[in-house]
């Protein structure tokens, strides 16, 4: 088969969908270094790579990074100004182990809790840095929602066309087990676009940062729905938040 005849099949090949005889033909063209097919296949792989953008943005736990680095032999990172506290905690643990038999476990748990707290602080700091960058942008606009309503979620949405969206919310109902909040960008025409998953705090507040450029001319609102864990490709429930952009 000629390269022209194969033209409509490169994407299927890159996605693993090509069938015979096209699959064998493309494979043969690539194997002999056919430049036309190599270029077409490269473009097809670019397309399939970009299909990953259809997945809702989600945030792994803070533990994952440390797990991955530990698996290649990286020592836990420096403790910085916490170091004296860790040193004291460690000495206390050793002291307790020696003099108070049976207390080791309790101290170890305290130490683990302190480390978990520090990891959580790291994540919070990152989010705040991201939020701060957007809030400081000269092009950033702010929209309030829920004002004047007693019970529903209230808050503000900050939108920077080149950097992204920051959502501050309060009065959010606690998401049930297996549920998560999902942000949507509502285009003026077409379907809502998934913009990431987040959870509220136990006091009903949430700070969520969605990085990435936004076309304000084509976007009418930012909304939030409750979805099953893992998110949805289209909203499946009534929005708990709708912030119409451009109406401050």
């Amino acid at each position, binding site marked *: 088969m000629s390269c022209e005849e194969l033209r409509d099949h490169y994407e299927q090949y890159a996605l693993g969908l090509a069938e015979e005889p096209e699959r064998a033909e493309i494979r043969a063209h690539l194997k002999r270094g056919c430049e036309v097919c190599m270029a077409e296949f490269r473009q097809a792989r670019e397309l399939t790579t970009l299909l990953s953008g*259809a*997945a809702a943005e989600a945030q792994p736990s803070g533990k994952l990074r440390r797990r991955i680095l530990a698996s290649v032999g990286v020592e836990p990172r420096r403790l910085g100004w916490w170091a004296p506290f860790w040193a004291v905690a460690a000495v206390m643990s050793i002291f307790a182990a020696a003099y108070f038999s049976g207390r080791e476990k309790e101290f170890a748990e305290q130490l683990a809790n302190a480390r978990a707290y520090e990891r959580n602080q790291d994540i919070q700091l990152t989010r705040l840095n991201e939020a701060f960058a957007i809030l400081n942008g000269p092009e950033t606009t702010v929209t309030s929602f829920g004002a004047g309503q007693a019970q529903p979620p209230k808050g503000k949405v900050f939108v920077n066309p080149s950097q992204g969206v920051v959502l501050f919310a309060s009065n959010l109902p606690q998401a049930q087990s297996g549920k998560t909040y999902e942000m949507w960008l509502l285009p003026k025409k077409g379907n809502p676009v998934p913009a990431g998953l987040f959870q509220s705090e136990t006091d009903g507040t949430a700070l969520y940062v969605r990085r990435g450029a936004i076309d304000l001319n084509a976007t009418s609102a930012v909304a939030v729905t409750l979805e099953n864990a893992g998110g949805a490709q289209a909203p499946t429930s009534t929005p708990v938040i709708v912030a119409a952009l451009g109406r401050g």
Partner: protein
Amino acid sequence: MTLFPLLLALDVKEEADLIARLQRRDPQALAELYDRYGRLAYSLILRVVRDTGVAEDLVQETFLRVWNRVQGFDAERGAVGPWLLAVARNRAIDYLRSTTGRARNSLELEAAEHPALYSDMEKDLLLSDKARRVKAALQKLSPKQREVIELAYFEGLSQSEMAERMGEPLGTVKTWVRTALKNLREELDAAVAI
């Protein structure tokens, strides 16, 4: 810390340096790689396996696989982000196939993540105008067209498996696949032409 979106916009030299450091077994380079692509790999894998614990295990497997195979990667010409995403997708689909009893084609998956395939691909592809266009074009597809593309990409289904899953004739599924891919390719071509 995950500063992925902020740091993904690398210049070409910086990414080449990062790959070279990975090849010298610099663990800090792996930390930087994770900060740039960890969230994206996790989002992709979670979409496939729908389980946060499994997703984190597979992200770890993905980064270790890249760490162990980076010697074969072309530091000057290769695009590490697309390669890493291919590895992530393959790990997730391989897991999905193993748990659902579907035939596993590990050889085919291995071939799709060969580092040489990611030479001469745009290094900033994931943040390019092409990425925005393809994402927008996916939203413009009909629901059935989008469904077949997602079943192929996120679940690794063949066209016959899709027809069975959707209860639709194979010919109809093939038409949806062909039309959807044609529309997406046209969007990509338009981005290249600008």
